[in-house]
């Protein structure tokens, strides 16, 4: 039996167990515990998407849970809104607050969301306790109507059990679709290297803030379901401590696997029930709830230090259900040979593709680039050479928008790009590779190139959640395969990119950069670390790229390589131009020989 079939069987078995569980436990355990596990699972699925896939932590999910709860309670109780209308309001309200908070904070690199959400949680708690006219203060609100659709009134443990677990399964389905989509690949790229993701046009903050809004929406949904289930709401379940519990559930289950969220919610909820019976016996009665934090804190520490991926991978391994690397693109990639090569941008009549005007970059007291002005016409192969520390890579970082110039400007086809963020510069057609290749190691070779197609594909966040991008994905895979064929990596398409040898990494970066259909391609030391055969292949590839109409600028130490490929050469020393011209002329320039080629000429 294949792993895929076994997984499918296991999933069916889980759904079947969920379906009969209310009947199996009847009279023995309160079904309420399983209703709560379902509610917590909803929230933790959102939190795991955020932590495992957007790489951000929230310590305020309890606030969104509370926000959903109070929106549902207040609109139905005080404004007489029908509960089924209040539900989307609660979901939307929580999502909106998350988005408004997250969108700006994600512009700050680093982990500031954790502070913002924590603050939100405290502010929410203070408001709910003090705006008594609206929220009922610390005692809360009672008599909230149950959910009803027409004459059908949903009441009782069993009804909410089925309703809530249906939402859990739906959330798992939506989350899985998202992770396996264009958006999911973009998120994986950002996790792997935010810089390389920006270099193919991905705006990390855009997707992070949407994932955060989704996590807010799921928590808001759980909150609304909670108040209709219990018909009662008070501030205490939504305090900051519960946000920590939710994070523990998420990390315990495993943030990289969505079903882990359900496992984490179940383990922690059942553990807490167990502790409530064991603790008083061990430590004597009183304050036992306080001691829970000791157990939870140590649990979190142990899991995150010894098994950062949580218990889910161990669970799968134990059930011998470890999924192999998905090979769903293999069939598509075999089509590559039959597809016409995607059209490249046609060379235009413009005088210059790239123009630098008085470009200067200063790092503290170090002048890395000193008033550099160059102009590169369309269709040229232009090389920048110079000794170590001459400012070559800094020039690339300035052109591609990773650095802001201290003074001066960069123009692409006459348009000033030096004030744009890197992902916008990439979207305008500046592709690049890095001196130390930055591939997305946990995506396959083919998927890496598909990420390069990000700005040329359109499946939106919402469409991706509903699995609507499959057709476009198949086309993208075929186009990506075309680029892999061009660089000679097609036979490695389904290998994880991290497993490629060094030369393969360089070629993969070129394929990924070509996928954005660059007007201008920046290659940072394309030949370094390559074997002679690979080097010859790269020379051929660069000429081929130029012949399809892309202008190439490259930085290289290997002077022989430059002489062989470049139409024109710029020699930099201490950030200043010391010569520019045809390779042969530059080579014989006395200033160049003095500054740089001296040893070369002597040998």
């Amino acid at each position, binding site marked *: 039996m294949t792993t895929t079939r076994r997984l499918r069987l296991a999933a069916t078995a889980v759904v079947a167990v969920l379906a009969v569980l209310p009947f199996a436990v009847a009279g023995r355990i309160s079904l309420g515990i399983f209703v709560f596990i379902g509610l917590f699972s909803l929230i933790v699925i959102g939190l795991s998407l955020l*932590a495992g896939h957007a790489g*951000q*932590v929230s*310590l305020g999910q309890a606030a969104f849970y509370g926000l959903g709860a109070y929106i549902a309670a207040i609109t139905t109780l005080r404004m007489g809104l029908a509960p089924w209308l209040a539900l989307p309001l609660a979901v939307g309200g929580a999502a909106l607050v998350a988005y408004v*908070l997250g969108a*700006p*904070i*994600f*512009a*700050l*690199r*680093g*982990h*500031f969301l*954790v*502070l*913002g959400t*924590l*603050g*939100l949680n*405290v*502010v929410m708690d*203070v*408001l709910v*306790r*003090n705006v008594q006219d609206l929220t009922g203060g610390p005692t809360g609100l009672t008599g909230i109507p149950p959910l009803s659709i027409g004459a059908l009134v949903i009441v009782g443990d069993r009804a909410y059990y089925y309703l809530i677990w249906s939402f859990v399964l739906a959330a798992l389905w939506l989350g899985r679709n998202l992770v396996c989509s264009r958006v999911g690949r973009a998120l994986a790229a950002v996790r792997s*290297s*935010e*810089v390389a993701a*920006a270099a193919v046009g991905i*705006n*990390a*903050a855009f997707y992070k803030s949407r994932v955060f809004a989704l996590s807010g929406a799921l928590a808001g949904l759980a909150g609304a379901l909670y108040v209709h289930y219990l018909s009662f709401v008070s501030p205490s379940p939504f305090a900051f401590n519960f946000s*920590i519990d939710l*994070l523990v559930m998420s*990390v315990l289950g495993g943030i990289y696997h969505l079903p882990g969220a359900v496992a984490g919610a179940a383990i922690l909820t059942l553990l807490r029930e167990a502790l409530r019976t064991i603790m008083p016996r061990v430590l004597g009665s009183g*304050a036992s709830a*306080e*001691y829970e*934090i*000791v*157990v939870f*804190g*140590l649990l*979190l*520490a142990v899991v*995150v*230090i010894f098994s*950062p991926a949580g218990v889910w991978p161990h669970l799968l391994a134990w059930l011998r259900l470890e999924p192999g690397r998905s090979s769903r693109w293999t069939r598509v990639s075999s089509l590559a040979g039959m597809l016409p090569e995607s059209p490249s941008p046609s060379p235009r009549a413009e005088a210059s593709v790239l123009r630098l005007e008085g470009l200067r970059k200063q*790092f503290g007291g170090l002048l890395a680039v000193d008033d550099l002005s160059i102009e590169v016409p369309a269709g040229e192969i232009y090389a920048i050479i110079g000794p170590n520390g001459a400012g070559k890579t800094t020039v690339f*970082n300035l052109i591609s*928008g*990773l*650095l*802001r110039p201290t003074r001066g400007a960069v123009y692409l086809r006459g348009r000033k790009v030096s*004030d*744009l*963020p*890197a*992902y916008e510069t990439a979207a305008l057609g500046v592709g690049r590779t890095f001196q130390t290749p930055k591939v997305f190691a946990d995506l396959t070779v083919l998927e890496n190139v598909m990420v390069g197609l990000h700005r040329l594909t359109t499946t939106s966040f919402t469409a991706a959640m509903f699995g609507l991008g499959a057709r476009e994905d198949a086309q993208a895979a075929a186009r990506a395969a075309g680029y892999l064929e061009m660089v000679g990596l097609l036979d490695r398409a389904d290998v994880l990119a991290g497993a490629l040898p060094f030369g393969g990494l360089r070629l993969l970066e070129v394929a990924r950069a070509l996928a954005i259909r660059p007007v201008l391609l920046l290659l940072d030391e394309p030949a370094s670390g390559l074997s002679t055969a690979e080097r010859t292949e790269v020379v051929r590839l660069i000429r081929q790229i130029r012949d399809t109409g892309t202008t190439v600028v490259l930085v290289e130490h290997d002077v022989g390589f430059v002489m062989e490929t470049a139409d024109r050469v710029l020699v930099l020393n201490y950030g200043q131009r010391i010569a520019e011209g045809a390779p042969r002329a530059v080579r014989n320039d006395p200033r160049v020989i003095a500054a740089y080629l001296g040893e070369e000429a002597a040998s």
Partner: protein
Amino acid sequence: MTLTQQIAQFLASGIINGTIYALLGLGLVAIHSATRVVNVAQGEFAALGALLASTLVTRGMPLSLAAAVAVGVAAAVGGGVYRSAIRPARDAGPLTLLIITIALHLSLKGLWLLAWGTDPHSLRPFTAGPPLRIAAAVVTRQSLWVIAVTTVVLVVLYVFFTRTILGKSLRACAVNPTAARLMGIRVERMSALAWMIAGALGGLAGVLIAPLTLATYDMGLILGLKGFVGAVIAGMASYPWTVAACILFGVVESLGAGLISSNYRDGIAFGVLIAALLWRAVAALRGGLIISEEAAQE
């Protein structure tokens, strides 16, 4: 009390609270600049300092010695935490490190609970005597101790960071760890030192504040977070600006709580935190610096 007197009183208590936040904020900045870790557990050092000093004094130790022991133990715990929990995971990425500090917060708080229980502990003021009147405000003698001791600490830190090789090495690690390593600085040791300094500053904050409030096992989180507000406003980088921002924040919090309602104290405090984050984010967006210079060189 007239309004002027009230405002003077709020200003005074704001400055004193802000001084305590500054001690915590400085520790946070030290840790963040040396190890790029946002330490959620910072306030636990303060809880430890407060609880330990109270117990030692109750057991008959002279206050000055008890304070020194409490600060020393907090520093040792800071270093120990770095060695046992942070350093083993230093290559695991910032997300894991952040979760580890959350786990540390829970575990340390749990430890304090096991050791000291849920009852509040008190510590007598450093010097006895009636409160003093300064301008229109009435100020306790302990408050003056808070300000005096903090001022001395700031001067010592300033000298340490600008006049000693060790302090300069620590700053070098914060600016560029790779270059610092190439210059022969032992970055691991500097990171441990940063955590020890943060532990000591946290412990000192606890010792200073214990006579003003009370020492409880769960006092740390809120204190640490308030230190964060100032540190975030100051950009998590500059020591003097962190102190200024923390004191300003203490004053805003105190005025807000006093003039609106003390029920809203923490709401106002964390509202300011969110506003500070949004303000910094908007500034970053306006600068167009989505990818920082540090990231470009990663």
